[in-house]
């Protein structure tokens, strides 16, 4: 049995100032649509709201938030177990790994992206990739410092006929490049479609021995004396950082009959220098979108004033 009392109460609150309605009467309307006509709750809710909008002579955007939830920016979600409303575009749908999960993926707004989970038992409509939804009454959750939202049976989903630019929730890190990890420099990737795994001794973990395709990358460590951040520079970023292009890298390896000379050369060019890197995070890595060498003048005087004042 779908709980219709909660959405009815929310609708009641939304029209409280304009119309003299009782929660029961709203619940009854919802019940007719949901139980008799088998309309999904979100659609039923929409229809009921529209009826009252007409009655009150209001536009949809005049409605208050309803349910007392705050409509939040995705980047601002920083605590678990909060009931919020979000508007966002489904960026990716992943394969649900458990039967209890109907859909799982990534939803984003202008400020960033967040993982969402939709439970099977909540009986909610299917979300589609690339579509913008208004999600009301979702709960925030946290696992190992990363936040997500859960859609539940009281959640209402409204498809919006609009598009939005999803922000890449980029982070900015500064520090000295203190290490270049193995798997950096001139590498070979599996050529199988959608694979791109990095080969180990000519072998792909998934596809066995394959004719690899060359690529450049750096897996580096930025350290500011307080924190370490692992950063991945792709081919373009690696070339910008080191001045070594993929073609030059291949040539160097060919001359030396050894691919490791490329990473060695890169080490000499970048280790021990300070950089500022901006980009989205993926697991424990920051993917460098922009990087800048910090080699401008430093303000010794401000620090000196501080040092003398202690």
């Amino acid at each position: 049995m779908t709980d219709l009392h909660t959405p009815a109460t929310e609708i009641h609150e939304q029209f409280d100032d304009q119309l003299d309605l009782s929660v029961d009467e709203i619940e009854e309307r919802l019940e007719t649509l949901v139980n008799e006509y088998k309309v999904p709750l979100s659609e039923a809710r929409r229809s009921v709201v529209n009826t009252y909008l007409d009655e009150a002579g209001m536009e949809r955007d005049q409605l208050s938030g309803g349910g007392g939830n705050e409509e939040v920016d995705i980047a601002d979600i920083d605590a678990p177990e909060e009931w919020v409303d979000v508007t966002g575009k489904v960026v990716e749908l992943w394969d649900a790994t458990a039967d209890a999960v109907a859909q799982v993926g990534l939803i984003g707004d202008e400020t960033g992206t967040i993982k969402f989970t939709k439970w099977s038992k909540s009986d909610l409509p299917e979300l589609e990739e690339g579509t913008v939804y208004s999600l009301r009454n979702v709960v925030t959750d946290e696992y190992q410092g990363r936040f997500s939202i859960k859609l539940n049976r009281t959640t209402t989903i409204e498809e919006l006929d609009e598009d939005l630019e999803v922000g890449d929730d980029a982070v900015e890190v500064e520090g000295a490049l203190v290490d270049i990890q193995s798997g950096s420099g001139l590498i070979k990737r599996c050529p199988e479609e959608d694979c791109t795994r990095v080969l180990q001794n000519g072998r792909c973990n998934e596809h066995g021995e394959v004719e690899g395709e060359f690529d450049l990358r750096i897996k580096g460590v930025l350290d500011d004396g307080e924190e370490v951040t692992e950063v991945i520079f792709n081919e373009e970023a690696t070339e910008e950082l080191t001045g070594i292009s993929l073609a030059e890298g291949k040539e160097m390896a060919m001359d030396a009959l050894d691919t490791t000379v490329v990473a060695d050369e890169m080490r000499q060019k970048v280790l021990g220098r300070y950089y500022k890197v901006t980009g989205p995070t993926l697991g424990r890595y920051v993917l460098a979108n922009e990087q800048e060498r910090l080699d401008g003048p430093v303000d010794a005087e401000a620090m000196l004033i501080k040092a003398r004042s202690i």
Partner: protein
Amino acid sequence: MAATPTREVARRVFAQEFNDASYTFKESDDERAPVYVLLPTGERANRVFLVGTLTETEDVGEDSEYWQGRVVDPNGDTFFMYAGQYQPDAASMLRELEPPAYVAVVGKPRTYETDEGEVNVSVRPESISQVDEATRDRWVVETAERTLDRMQAFEDAEGGEMDEYVQMATEQYDLPVENYRRAAVGALESLEDQQRESAPTEQ
């Protein structure tokens, strides 16, 4: 997800404080547990990052190559580093570099006791690279800032609730932390003098 051991942060410390950091400890009984030196300003260090002037290199090995490098900070204090067959990249850098040169060094603090019972602190380099003056200058300001932050935490702790490593430092050392503030001031002053000299003179 497999538990990846977190990488140790590289502390920033001037040579004077580093060379005073003679007390070492482990956080667990595990044989492979990381060894820390205790900085006198009350912080543990399993790794350091330093930039300075390489003034001298020498092969001090008897049977096989064992390179010693001296890297001097703006106060004229020296970091000693040793690289042998187990640090081939660092050893070959010390073999090839022509002092004087600005170098950036990432490495692990090591201590050893001399026959006279004194504890010497040195760096076992993981990497050495030749850098420019801008990088050196940035390191000096950054290291001054980190040193002052540690000092402030050290002084704030006295009287109040004491940080574990500040507590340890007060127990293990009898060194006035004021010395390290002076080292920070000295390093910044020498940087300022140098910047003034290289700046174009106004008419």
